[in-house]
């Protein structure tokens, strides 16, 4: 990354030697990323991160149908990241329910697509995240993709794999869908860089135009240091993944057991579902998240209530609401995320802190 900032600092779209060197860096990163994520290098469209990739997928798919003169709608699950949910709702799309564990309701997906069929409303894109960013619940993307291919064969399928990609191999999902979003900062890379994988043969009109970069799919000068760093982070992540996943999962389970044993009434959100190894998401009935997080921070436990995107404007999470967790349970949401560097001492300290702080809040109740 430093080299890209200080030596090969040319603009990869230029023609001179420095530009060509920078372009070679981008090419190498593209090839490396393709290998890390089980995709084809030419399918990678670099973006400023997951949100832009999601936005490009939804708006681009809608444009694709509109350009053909058959405007359609977007469909997504109720627990999507706001980067998907907001463009889908903004453009008048449909939202598919999840069950009490936060897992996509495949029957409801079928119902929604059949309804749209019946009304002769074309479906531009169906977007199902690979794993939820708040609860870590893994979604049946491949099963969903089969339903979409059958009931809405002209639709593109998108999967936001931002949360998933650090912990599980994305090859199968990439093969099953047309569009897949990835963000560097979830895999140990820097913030502000990501990509949308656009399947071979899929034409996705550009949303951000100008300059013609990324084969005309996304205008704008490449973030070369970010791209190089993302590729390096992905290599490390993939090389260490199987070991990391097992270790982090054990730590996460230890954390969950200790919190459940110490904090009366606490339950794990989406406990009945297959979940990512790094997220321990609890609901703590009768506990308000804000004082909880404030007090945890005093103990050097940096946690969040929902996704960190909405901190500063904390609202009841749409993910929990979609799972039917409302009323007195929802405000006490606590998400503890582990990283690949987390240790046993870290999780023990975190569990002790949570139990102690919950006790302190309850004792004043």
């Amino acid at each position: 990354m430093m080299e890209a900032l200080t030596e090969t600092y040319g603009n990869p779209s230029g023609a001179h030697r420095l530009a060509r060197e920078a372009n070679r860096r981008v090419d190498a990163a593209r090839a490396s990323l393709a290998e890390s994520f089980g995709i084809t290098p030419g399918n990678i469209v670099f973006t400023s991160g997951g949100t832009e990739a999601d936005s490009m997928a939804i708006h681009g798919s809608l444009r694709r149908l509109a350009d053909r003169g058959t405007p359609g709608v977007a469909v997504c699950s109720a627990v999507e990241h706001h980067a998907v949910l907001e463009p889908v709702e903004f453009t008048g799309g449909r939202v598919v329910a999840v069950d009490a564990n936060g897992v996509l309701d495949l029957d409801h997906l079928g119902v929604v697509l059949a309804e749209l069929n019946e009304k002769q409303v074309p479906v531009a894109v169906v977007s199902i995240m690979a794993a939820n960013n708040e609860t870590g619940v893994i979604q049946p993307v491949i099963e969903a993709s089969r339903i979409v291919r059958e009931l809405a064969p002209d639709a593109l399928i998108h999967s936001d794999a931002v949360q998933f990609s650090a912990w599980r191999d994305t090859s199968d999902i990439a093969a099953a869908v047309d569009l897949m979003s990835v963000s560097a900062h979830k895999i140990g890379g820097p913030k502000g860089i990501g990509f949308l994988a656009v399947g071979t043969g899929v034409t996705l009109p550009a949303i951000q135009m100008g300059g013609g970069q990324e084969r005309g799919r996304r205008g704008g000068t490449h973030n070369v240091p970010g791209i190089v760093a993302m590729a390096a982070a992905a290599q490390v992540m993939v090389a260490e993944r199987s070991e990391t996943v097992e270790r982090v999962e054990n730590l996460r389970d230890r954390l969950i057991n200790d919190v459940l044993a110490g904090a009366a009434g606490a339950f794990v959100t989406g406990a009945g579902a297959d979940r990512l190894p790094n997220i321990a998401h609890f609901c703590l009935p009768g506990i308000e998240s804000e004082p909880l997080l404030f007090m945890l921070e005093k103990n050097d436990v940096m946690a969040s209530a929902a996704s960190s995107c909405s901190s500063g404007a904390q609202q009841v999470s749409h993910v929990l609401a979609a799972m039917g967790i409302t009323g007195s349970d929802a405000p006490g949401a606590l998400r503890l995320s582990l990283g690949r560097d987390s240790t046993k001492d870290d999780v023990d300290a975190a569990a002790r802190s949570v139990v102690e702080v919950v006790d302190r809040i309850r004792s004043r109740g």
Partner: protein
Amino acid sequence: MAEVLVAMSGGVDSSVAAALLVDAGHTVTGVTLKLWGGESDSGCCSVSDVDDARWVATALGIEHHVFNLGSDFNEHVVDRYVADYAAGLNPNPCIECNRHIKFSKLLDRADLLGFDQIATGHHAAISSHEGSLYLRRGDDPAKDQSYVLHMLDQSQLRRLILPVGDMTKDEVRRIAEERGLVTAAKPDSQDVCFIHSKGGRQEFLGNRIPLTPASVVDTEGVQVGSVQSVELVTIGQRRGLDVGGNTGRKYVTDIDRTSNTITLGDRAGALRESVALHRFVWADQPIAGPVVAQYSAHGRPVAGRLERLGNDGADEGSVVWDTPQIAVAPGQSVVFYDGDRVLGGAIAR
């Protein structure tokens, strides 16, 4: 020195309040309350106000947090405001916010989080008198906010610091300017923070409750005009009623919600001998007898006699004015003073 949580609205007063607390050697943490999630262009609590508060906190080298008390605010302030109008009352939402949010919810939260005291940028002071604490009028008469803080009792006053209470607004702005705080030249918040200036109360309430048209008559019962919503008309009001051919100053002397008729008359018709009260609050001990009372945020204090009904537990009473006063709208707060000292208050029935 104390651990102090200072409520920072993103305005100049609370910015300077925070700065003065830091100067005084306290361990200071800033917090901005996110209260209203809907549309608004006045008052405080917008995203840019949160940014302003954070920039000031950074400049002062203190931590800054955001507490979302939106659902409490909706329940205790917004919903109540709407229900009060529907019931023919004239509520003061700033007072209810102070009563239920800033000096209740926020104070409890501060206790829970281990703070010794909270602070705000209100223009009013706290001083002790015969062993008890009292709120005093701020030194800047144009900015005095003691009226909207009148509900504070001993336990609240003990845990509250009002660093700019003894300053004029000009002094506050000068300090902010000297320290280069981004909020130095920010205009004062006006109006109700959750109401958009363009649509006003009419639109806000109209989206939430049915508003009732009413006819406007003179004292002889002859119709002289009409209004779209009787809910927005206040007894004693003398502006904002669009009636043609006005001769002299007219006041709303009566509002009949059964026939939806508003009567306009001369000043004498709008005068009342007394105001009936309930929901009393006291800084320390309840009082009765001769009193000076103020019945609007920037009104002048008026002499009268406070009578409380029944025994001490009763929450009803009245002030009989020494000379008749323009009618106090039901729902308005009436605040009792001894000189500059706030003794308590109640709500007009």
